[in-house]
């Protein structure tokens, strides 16, 4: 081992007189005789020697001794090589010494690219060369190279290079600095990062005339949508202008409707609604236009009602308005007029009347109404309306008008167990008979339960 150490020491000081090769051979021979020798030292020494030999080559001309190299350290040596533009050698050394690409190859390639940018002539050629060498190597910031290109005044080249920058958060601000707003916006939209899109949009809004800005944005629907979203929250008037400029009559109309409903005075409301109606027609939305006209009629009718009765009507829907009228006066002419004017279907009107009459406890009128003609809604609504108001006696009157099969269920709701049982028996419905027993519960109904059992037996016998 002493021989080995001596040999190595000598190698470091090697000059032409003591060729490295023979020394190395001696060392290699010697190490076989040393037990438990850690080969790492040997390998490292060999690799460092190789590097040294390379830099001592006349083309590079860095005659370093080993001691100097150690003092300098390898990273600094690489930097020196880069400064001397010995890029290829530097990269090869990095690969050979297995220096991680972050510190080694990427850094060197970045420098090389910057150099190329300063020196070469043709934009396209330079860009292609750079890209082919760099490819997708991780850790390269194309933005840096592009900034360098821009600083040299080569904006075309900078844009080409920026195209390869994967990180849009770096790409976009630089494009904006270079005043390539369209490209910046396109790249921002491509990235899907809405914050980035907003950055470009706001920058554009600040730096351009409003009309100009809106025209520009129209070409980019995604950006337009985001800007509209911003306006919706922050700048109501701008949003309306936007919709108008963009011929979005449908959306415009919707906004006018929402504004109208927030109006304090009736005249304001009607004015906004008229505008909305025009826009709906423009957007060829006949349904919405008709409904808007209808609502304006309703508001006017409600205003008249409010003045006459001193009760609040504005803001209620058509159904609610009719309901209130009926509650005040079940023969209300106004309710009839509203029904005709707004083409309220029979079924809905009957429901409203039933509820209104039950609400005010006018049981006589309710009964008369039920007899006035065949109910389009059946008699169940009458029953439930009565039960809701707690009047079982009234409810029972309407159960009789229902078809037989449906009656037991409602008799049960009225707790009229006997009638329920009889009708269930008449329709041979054993399941319902069981339900009656279950729901009528315990004490006080034992007689009833016995009778039901008898009924069930009878039914089974008939089978």
């Amino acid at each position, binding site marked *: 081992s002493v021989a080995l150490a001596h040999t190595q020491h000598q190698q470091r000081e090697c000059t032409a007189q003591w060729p490295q090769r023979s020394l190395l051979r001696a060392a290699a021979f010697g190490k076989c005789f040393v037990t438990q020798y850690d080969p790492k030292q040997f390998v490292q020494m060999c690799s460092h020697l190789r590097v040294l030999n390379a830099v001592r080559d006349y083309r590079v001309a860095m005659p370093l001794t080993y001691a100097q190299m150690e003092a300098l350290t390898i990273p600094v040596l690489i930097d020196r090589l880069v400064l001397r533009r010995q890029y290829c050698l530097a990269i090869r050394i990095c690969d050979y010494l297995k220096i991680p690409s*972050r510190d080694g190859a990427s850094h060197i390639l970045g420098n090389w690219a910057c150099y190329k940018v300063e020196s070469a002539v043709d934009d396209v050629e330079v860009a292609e060369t750079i890209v082919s060498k760099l490819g*997708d190597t*991780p*850790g390269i910031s194309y933005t840096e190279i592009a900034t360098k290109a821009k600083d040299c005044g080569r904006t075309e080249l900078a844009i080409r290079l920026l195209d390869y920058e*994967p*990180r*849009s958060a770096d790409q976009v601000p630089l494009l904006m600095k270079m005043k390539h707003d369209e490209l910046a916006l396109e790249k921002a939209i491509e*990235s*899907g*990062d*809405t*914050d980035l899109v*907003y*950055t470009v949009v*706001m920058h554009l809004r600040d730096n351009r005339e409003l009309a100009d800005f809106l025209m520009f944005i129209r070409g980019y*629907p*995604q950006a337009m*949508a*985001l800007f*509209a*979203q*911003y306006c*919706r*929250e*922050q700048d109501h008037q701008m949003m309306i202008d936007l919709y108008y400029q963009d011929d979005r009559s*449908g959306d415009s109309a*919707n906004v006018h*409707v*929402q504004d109208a*409903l927030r109006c304090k005075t009736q005249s304001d409301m009607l004015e906004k609604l008229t505008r909305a109606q025009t826009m709906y027609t423009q957007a060829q939305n006949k*349904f*919405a236009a008709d*409904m*808007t006209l209808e*609502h304006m009629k*309703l508001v006017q009718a409600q205003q008249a009602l409010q003045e006459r009765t001193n009760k609040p009507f504005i*803001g*209620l*829907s*058509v*159904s*609610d308005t009719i309901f209130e009228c009926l509650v005040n006066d079940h023969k209300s002419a106004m309710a009839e007029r509203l029904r005709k004017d*707004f083409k*309220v*279907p029979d*079924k*809905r009107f009957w*429901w*409203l009347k039933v*509820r209104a009459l039950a609400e005010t406890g006018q049981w006589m009128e309710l009964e008369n109404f039920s007899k006035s003609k065949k109910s389009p*809604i059946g008699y169940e609504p009458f029953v439930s309306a009565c039960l809701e108001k707690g009047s079982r006696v009234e409810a029972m009157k309407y159960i009789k008008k229902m078809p037989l099969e449906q009656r037991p269920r409602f008799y049960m709701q009225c707790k009229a167990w006997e009638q329920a049982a009889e009708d269930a028996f008449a329709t041979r419905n054993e399941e319902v008979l069981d339900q009656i027993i279950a729901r009528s519960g315990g004490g006080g109904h034992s007689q009833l339960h016995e009778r039901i059992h008898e009924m069930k037996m009878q039914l089974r016998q008939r089978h």
Partner: protein
Amino acid sequence: MSQSSGFLSNGRVDIGLLRQSLRAEFIECLTRCDGSKAIVWDDKLTSPFTLVAEYTLLKAHGVDKMYPLRHGALPSCEMQHIIFLSRPKLANMEMIADNIREAAKDRLKEFSVFFVPRKTMLCERKLEELGVYGNLTHIDEYNLDIIPFDSDLLSLEQPLSFRECYLEQDYTSLFYVARSLMTIQALYGTIPSLVGKGPCSKQVIDMILRMRRESPSQKSSVMPQIDNLILLDRSADLMTPMLSQLTYEGLVDEIFGISNCSVRLPPEKFLTSEQEEKNAASGIAAGPKVLVLNSADEMFGELRDLNYQAVGPLLSRKAKRVTSQMEERHEAKTVRQLKQFVNRLPHLQSMRQAVSTHTSVAELIKERVFSDDFMNTLRAEQELCGCVDTDRVHPLIETLIAKKAPILKVLRLICVHCMANNGFKPKLMDFYRREIIQTYGFHHLVTLDTFEKVGLLFNKSSTVY
């Protein structure tokens, strides 16, 4: 709420790791702020936060007071550093500015804002416009984009994302999805296979691939624990959320509403008899019972996905088993057997408590489920899904509107009808729309228009297949 989170590690992938990393990040944000701290919360953040960090953790890191974010001035406090935790919403910026303007009169105070999940340029601009940008020591973000709810469930808690993407064409939430998936991949390994259905899924996958290119150094050295990523757009199936849920957990949600894994229930069935007496004596009504529902509760884990009709039998079987196991103590003869029994006792007692709680919940559900209302709705849904006679107005829908039933219920049924019928003929569409507007108010003109834009209501197209 302090609660062990051990259950998070029970799934195939250890979600506990994610929770730990979120907590660590939050603590790091807190420690960056010096002095005694007070936190001002954005209301919508408090619930999701409880799933990540409880109050004791905050207190341990110097947070002594907490306030909700409101307009006007903050109540005065002696804390040195006021931290605002807020979503990047412009409306919140105004409230923050109000708070700061008042409190900044005390020169010793420092202010910081942490945006959750992301700091946006618009908000920074707004703070500048409002004149308080200069008062802020730290303006940063806390990346709480995805929150662990359960051992197999993570959520971003962005309730407005459907509206934003489909109505307003604002795809910010998709960006958050992509970013949260990158976070997951950093912890659990790069997912090799990405599959999706729908335009939004495509956008997310494109963004993920882009993000991978942008930061290749993030290639994690972790072996991928997840093999496949499957992304599904909500719009691929709009009908299912409109139908009534019929599982145990689904019904609890339909009737009472589950939010951030917990539900508030009416207290009557849960009080013991002494509590009832005490309440009757003092005249105070009991507050609602808050129940936490996740897989930490073993009983709930078994019940949650069962159809409600299977819940009763399972609960009674469990009850019998617990009772018989409790009775075993009479048979224990040797000291060792007794000792074994005593060791099992806490588990048995908690099982018994769980069975009793869930039985009460099941009873609450039963009352609603067997009501005429619910049964009618269910029958209507089944008829519609069976596509029987769906070209006409459905009688139940008509009746519900006439009775002025809650509008959400009516709208859900109409959407089911529309989708089952593959669109409405103009006459039917106009009929339903008029009925809604005339019953519930003119402002629903815009509501219905929104539904059409989003694809929940549509006309029958002229092509016949």
